[in-house]
């Protein structure tokens, strides 16, 4: 009898653990599927837009950067080329930044500084570094790689009135932590359009230090896009707001726009 009870308990615990594992696995699979759709949302062939970046210090001082950007995605490789021209402030006007994204190796990046009058290749290690001195990192702007993270569905809840999945993304290895600057991210993904509306970013030591919010989004040529985002450093409340305006898509940008010659 005792033996029966013992084996019954063992079986019961085993079944519970098994069910929990399956639930975990299903959650992981669901989370991975959701994030796969987030990362593989349809893209435009190309895009031209004006960007404004407001950097607001904890004491309220505001610095404004204005840029014009062009980007083009290769439908075969899904690799993007991007050219950014700085318009304001006046001391960096005319500076150009060219990015050739690569899936299998470090991105190629060049900067053209008018005072030097030549394009210089710059190292791609700065992905975790700040984007134009703002609270967004280069990694935030580039979006990161789907394969770099392990996903887990934490819960489902409404955010700003929209039903969302709350998904934890944990860096798969130290290389990803180094590249992104994040050990973990928790993302709120809208169920209706797979847009990320909030990301809580955890630093290399696992501390929550930054929050990225999508303030506005628009559907342009059938594709959803974040037209205004805010990044807030939680330790000092320094924040940056990035806005996209006058967005044009699928306008047939030529490849030569993204060449070294176009930089100089």
């Amino acid at each position: 009898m005792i033996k029966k009870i013992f084996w019954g308990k063992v079986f019961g615990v085993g079944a519970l653990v098994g069910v929990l594992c399956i639930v975990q696995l299903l959650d992981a699979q669901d989370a991975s599927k959701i994030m796969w759709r987030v990362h593989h949302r349809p893209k435009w062939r190309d895009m031209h837009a004006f960007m404004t970046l407001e950097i607001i210090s904890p004491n309220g001082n505001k610095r404004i950067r204005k840029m014009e950007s062009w980007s083009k995605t290769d439908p075969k490789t899904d690799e993007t080329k991007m050219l950014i021209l700085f318009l304001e402030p006046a001391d960096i006007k005319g500076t150009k930044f060219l990015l050739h994204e690569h899936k299998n190796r470090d991105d190629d990046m060049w900067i053209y500084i008018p005072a030097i009058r030549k394009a210089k290749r710059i190292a791609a290690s700065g992905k975790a570094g700040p984007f134009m001195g703002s609270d967004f990192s280069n990694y935030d702007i580039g979006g990161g790689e789907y394969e770099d993270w392990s996903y887990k569905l934490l819960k489902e809840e409404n955010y700003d009135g929209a039903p969302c999945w709350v998904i934890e993304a944990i860096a798969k290895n130290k290389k990803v932590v180094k590249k992104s600057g994040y050990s973990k991210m928790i993302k709120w993904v809208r169920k209706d359009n797979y847009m990320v509306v909030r990301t809580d970013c955890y630093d290399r030591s696992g501390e929550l230090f930054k929050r990225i919010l999508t303030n506005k989004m628009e559907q342009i040529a059938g594709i959803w896009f974040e037209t205004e985002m805010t990044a807030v450093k939680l330790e000092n409340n320094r924040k940056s707001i990035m806005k996209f305006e006058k967005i044009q898509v699928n306008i047939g940008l030529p490849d030569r726009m993204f060449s070294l010659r176009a930089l100089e």
Partner: protein
Amino acid sequence: MNLMLLLLAFNIPFGGYLRFESYARIDSLKQYKKLASSIQIKISFERGDVEGYGAFNFVYDRIPDSAYIEPVEAYFSYERGFLGLTAGKRIIRIGTADWLNPTDVISPKDYTTLHSDIEEFTKGIEEMNFDLSFSNFYASLYIFPAFTPNKYPMVPFSVGIIPNVLSVSFFPDSAIKPSYEVKYTQYGLRFQGYLSNIDFSLTYLSIYDRDFDLDYRVCRTANSSTIVLIPHYNPVKMFGADFSMTISGWEFHGEGAYFKTIDEDGTDPAVKNPYIYAILGGNKTFLDEKVKFGSQVGVKHIFDFKDSTYYEPSLIKSVVYGFAQKFNYQNHENTYYGTLTLGYNSPDGSWSIDGTLVYDFTNNDYFTIPKLMYSPADAVNIIAGLFLSGGKGSSPFSEMGKHVGKLAFFEIKFNF
């Protein structure tokens, strides 16, 4: 101001800056070397495939009391498909190295003024260039119809070598340089592009050397002789190459050039020998790009180098060689260089410290412009720093040190 109103009236985009600069000797802060107020106006426009750009400086310098307008650049460019054409006065920079650029010999340098930014020593040159681009590569043909030499602070002098027997006189204003004739047109070819994570370029230039050689004549009287030295700008051919690549967060670069002078066997005491000049280095940023580090090493090797005893059989040639070595710094067969760059940007980007030290290990000479930059508001920059050069040898750095001394500078710049 009327010019700005005119630009506004015609809806031509313009920008520029208003700047005040002051340079004073560290050892005698009462003595200013530069007290200048300047305004730069930059205009640019685009009509179809044609773009135009112009930048003009209006400068008033109290030391010496002078006011002048300097056209920095003014050019048109036309681009259609894979073809491009640019014509006008333009600054052309080539090479991947920092501060020491062996291949960067197209645009002339003006070392008679002081600047806190090394790029400002480079001046525009009249040129036409045709570009042909294909995929990741492009080729350029440059034509330079006029010659502009590098400018150094030179003064005429006369010095006795053997009292009452032999003297030397130098007349910089009588320089021999190519005149404005088609036959003296200079040209260059450049092919550049990138493969994977490596940028590269190959350059060939057939130009006149922007740094002078000497021309000498001997004037004899009954009891004495005078060697008259005159700057002479000779043709030179340059074969250059450079590369830049990124590996694991580092940027590595290299740049080298072979200069074929007219003294191919190195037997003319007044003309530079052929030489090769190469630089290798790397850059990296740390702590989310707040800390900047860069370092380079380089060597200049002179072919068929002759020591001072070679010309001793001829007193005249020996004396001329001594002065030529002093002017063109070909006083060692091999000269070794190193550079070190360190920088720090504050987390909020409002201030930074930056400094590059260039050191000539052969002559023990140095040059550096460490500076502190503060930006109290967008487009407003306040810079304070030191302009230091000197050493014990004979190099451009020690010459600059002797000429201008060790300086402290302050600069405020409002960009619009």
